[in-house]
């Protein structure tokens, strides 16, 4: 249970951190608001998961202790979510791959007991809207202009190797419905499902990409520079 809470919390937190980078830089004002909403939802979920993780661990660590005082090797997030934002196609394809998996994963966790099921249920309501949004963007970019189509395809190709990690361990049964979902969306979006079958792994074990170190250095700076301070 601790592992699940930490995995979900770290994944939501890192993705939220990435989305927050778009604030003030989105393609249009309405998108700036929409991305911030998603980032806030994920941050809220992350805080619930990380607080639970701290409780379950029983060493008195708070959500902030876990977020700000852990080194990269202790983070359990999916590699997918630590990938840089890139262009809007990369951001929205990353979001779509994640949201689609997240919907399935939250439904699975909703069958568990106690706090995990409660948090999963709340997150599932928010995620239903996220996946609708990100799927719409895959349609708009895949079946929009030539430029948007090639950017969307490039993003799908680049991120595909990070998708496999979402289906390790108990999440294995989610792979088939996820692929089916993605195939249907991509067909409608006139995009090709990438052929590559190998996948990166390591995030769930604390072995990350180079990107995470930089992200954490930025995120954790104040707590590291002023140890023990209250904010």
């Amino acid at each position, binding site marked *: 249970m601790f592992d699940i809470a930490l995995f979900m919390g770290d994944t939501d937190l890192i993705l939220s951190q990435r989305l927050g980078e778009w604030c003030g830089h989105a393609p*249009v*004002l*309405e998108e700036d*608001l*929409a991305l911030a*909403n998603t980032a806030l939802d994920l941050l809220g979920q992350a805080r619930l998961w990380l607080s639970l993780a701290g409780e379950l661990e029983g060493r008195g660590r708070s959500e902030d202790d876990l977020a700000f005082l852990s080194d990269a090797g202790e983070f359990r997030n999916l590699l997918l979510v630590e990938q840089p934002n890139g262009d809007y196609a990369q951001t929205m394809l990353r979001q779509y791959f994640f949201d689609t998996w997240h919907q399935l994963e939250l439904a699975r966790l909703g069958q568990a007991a106690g706090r995990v099921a409660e948090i999963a249920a709340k997150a599932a309501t928010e995620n239903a*809207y996220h996946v*609708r*949004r990100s799927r*719409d963007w895959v349609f*708009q970019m895949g079946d929009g202009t030539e430029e948007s189509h090639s950017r969307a395809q490039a993003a799908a190709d680049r991120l595909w190797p990070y998708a496999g990690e979402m289906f390790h361990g108990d999440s294995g049964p989610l792979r088939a419905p996820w692929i089916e979902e993605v195939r249907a969306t991509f067909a409608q979006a006139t995009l090709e499902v990438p052929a590559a079958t190998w996948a990166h792994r390591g995030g769930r074990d604390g072995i990350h990409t180079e990107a995470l170190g930089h992200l954490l250095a930025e995120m954790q700076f104040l707590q590291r520079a002023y140890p023990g301070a209250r904010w």
Partner: protein
Amino acid sequence: MSAVRDWPLWEVFIRSQHGVAHKHVGSLHAASAEAALCAARDVYTRRHEGVSIWVVPSAAITASSPGEREPLFEPANNKVYRHPGFFQVPPEVKNL
């Protein structure tokens, strides 16, 4: 600077609770009706202000012109007896 066509303008109407009428809350830009609905949710219901959202292309709205105000509204204004406040009800009379 690329000369990009502006996303069309939509008017947003929100009903905040059942039984109450939709109220005009503002506008936004979106490429389609679906997108406008999503954007309206993100822009205008961040503090849980909505039960139902309507979006209408601004271009689809026909409004009366201020110069027409008299013919359109004057007749009703003259018939003040239509308003309950016109009649003086004795204070002893309840439920009227």
